[in-house]
């Protein structure tokens, strides 16, 4: 049984995000890097689907089991829809994978090897951080008590209201629910899940977004993309000149929501606007993609959601000015409604 769970867990982290992304991403959306985009977008989609059920369940004081059931049903619906689309359009995920792997250049291989080495470091080495109780302790408490934010995870005190004592931001950004739900489904504890099992995947995810950016910036030149990724890795590793840099967060405590926003969601939003400026227009599918990225950031951290919304706003204004298209800016606004709602929850309870 344990082996089955391990296999399912690995499939959930590797194969499932590309599959679920088929619900929205057309085939060969991003050339040879389509499979990388599918992986990144799929992760964001999984986060985005969890967000509102988690917030509603916390505010209405529902149980973790109910949240898992709702999340599972939503994911199931999306999966069925995605599989139906794959069948209809005949997309070969393995074909996209083969296309990506067959065209690998030496710099790409070097950068990938460096990323994998760091991923191994995050799995086998440790870094203790003071912020962990926000994520891990609350997930452990939720898992053990089958509740959502009824106890202060850090000290175990029962909360008479749904949110008090500095935990209000967790209502706006309930990332711990993801860890609690995954722990419950795959039969593990949140501490090893957050500190050992997930960091290698998250590390790869963060660098995958940088690979995507390189591929877009150099318009499909894979040699330059690889070189870009090598330099990006170098910059990341040498960004420890301060503990406050985004790369430091991304490299040493990637399981925390803010680190994922800094290392993954913010670059993905930048990537989206680079694509838009190349295409010269913004379609409904792009608005949806932006909304998914922003909603994922809402789950991860409330403050990060504000940052992402700000980033999207500035990028849309600049892109609209460069392309001389008001539409691009106007289309961005609906996607900003979600982080604004999060910001309101965050500000209200703080």
């Amino acid at each position, binding site marked *: 049984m344990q082996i089955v769970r391990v296999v399912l867990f690995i499939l959930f982290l590797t194969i499932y995000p590309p599959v679920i992304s088929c619900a929205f991403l057309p085939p060969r959306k991003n050339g040879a890097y389509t499979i990388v985009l599918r992986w990144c977008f799929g992760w964001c989609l999984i986060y985005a689907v969890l967000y509102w059920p988690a917030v509603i369940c916390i505010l209405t004081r529902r149980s973790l089991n109910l949240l898992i059931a709702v999340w599972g049903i939503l994911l199931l619906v999306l999966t069925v829809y995605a599989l139906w689309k794959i069948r209809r359009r005949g997309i070969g995920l393995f074909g996209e994978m083969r296309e990506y792997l067959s065209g690998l250049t030496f710099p790409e291989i070097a950068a990938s090897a460096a990323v994998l080495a760091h991923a191994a*470091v995050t799995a*086998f080495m*440790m*870094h*203790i951080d003071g912020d*962990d*109780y926000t994520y891990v*302790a609350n997930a*452990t408490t939720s898992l*053990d008590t089958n509740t959502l934010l009824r*106890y202060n*995870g*850090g000290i*175990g*005190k029962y909360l008479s209201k749904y949110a008090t*004592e500095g935990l209000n931001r967790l209502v706006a950004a309930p990332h711990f629910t993801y860890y609690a739900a995954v722990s419950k489904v795959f039969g593990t*504890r949140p*501490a*090893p899940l957050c*500190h*050992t099992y997930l960091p290698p995947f998250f590390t790869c995810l963060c660098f995958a977004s*940088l690979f995507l950016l*390189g591929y877009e*910036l*150099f*318009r499909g030149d894979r040699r*330059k993309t690889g*070189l*870009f*990724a090598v*330099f*990006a890795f*170098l*910059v*990341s*590793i*040498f*960004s420890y*000149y*301060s503990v*406050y840099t*985004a*790369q430091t967060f991304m*490299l*040493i405590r990637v399981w925390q929501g803010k680190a994922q*926003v800094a290392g993954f969601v*913010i*670059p993905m939003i930048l990537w989206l606007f*680079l694509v838009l*400026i*190349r295409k010269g227009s913004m379609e409904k599918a792009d608005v949806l993609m932006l909304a998914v990225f922003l909603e994922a950031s809402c789950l991860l951290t409330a403050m990060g959601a504000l*940052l992402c919304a700000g*980033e999207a706003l*500035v990028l849309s204004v*600049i*892109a609209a000015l*460069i*392309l001389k298209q008001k539409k691009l800016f106007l289309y961005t606004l609906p996607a900003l409604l979600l982080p604004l709602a999060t*910001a309101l929850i965050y*500000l209200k309870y703080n």
Partner: protein
Amino acid sequence: MQKAIEIIISTYKDVFPRPFYLLYTVAAIVFLLVRRKSSHEKLMGLYSATILLLFFLPPFAYLAAPFLRDGDVYWRYLWVLPIVVILPYAAVLLISRSPRRIINAAVCVLLAAALMFGGRNLYAAGVFHKATSREKVLDHTLVTARVIEENIEQTGHRYAYLAAPFQVSHEIREVSSAPRIYSKRYFDFTYLKENYPIRYYNVRVLNGLQTDEQHKTVRNLKKRRCNYIYMPTGAGCDEDLVKYGYEVIFDGGAWKIWYNPKVLGKKEAKEKKRKKAEQKKALEAEQSKALQAEKS
């Protein structure tokens, strides 16, 4: 506005203690804005320049501060400055300028050296340590959690209120949600000293700091209904712990876990009181019945 300027300066000092990466970023922005060969270069250059200018603009800092914990975490704003994108982007553009490969290779090496010189290597800084468990918490935290869980199982006494030093109390609930934590939220020592002198005193002692009034610590912890105490051996509280009914359930050498089965939680104490009162009532009723029977 004065506060906004202070926020900017302190954040700048925190994020760029060595200014090299900021200088590199400015150079990359200028390079991209001068070059402007593609829309991507324009977007990257303009976006990065806007973010950087806004960061140094006091009115913006003034407006943004309330959203960033009154400016305490203004440094997070700099996360949207894509240093990790713009530097490699400019570097690769520079490298691929010349048709001669040897020149490109030389530029590549120079740029890499500049990046390495300007930054600080994460691995060399000793950030990571070898993991001793999958949970990746301190070993004694893990042991404490297991000892408490086992003790709860053995005694059937579910109430667990632990007083422990900062690190252990901070980590233990990541591993086990069984114990409630006493000193967890009192780690702001200055605030604590001013507002809760006794708690400050307790926390200080529990952190292994020496004091000459240990008895107060244990007495107060018992008063606060802590039935588990993680005590460093050097704190010198062992005699008092024994005096107040605590017994060692685990000896870790430099520290011990003490347990007092008689210390009950508020609910448990109430329940016990209620049961006692009921027993007393029942006894009185029996006695009165017996008395009546005797009379009759």
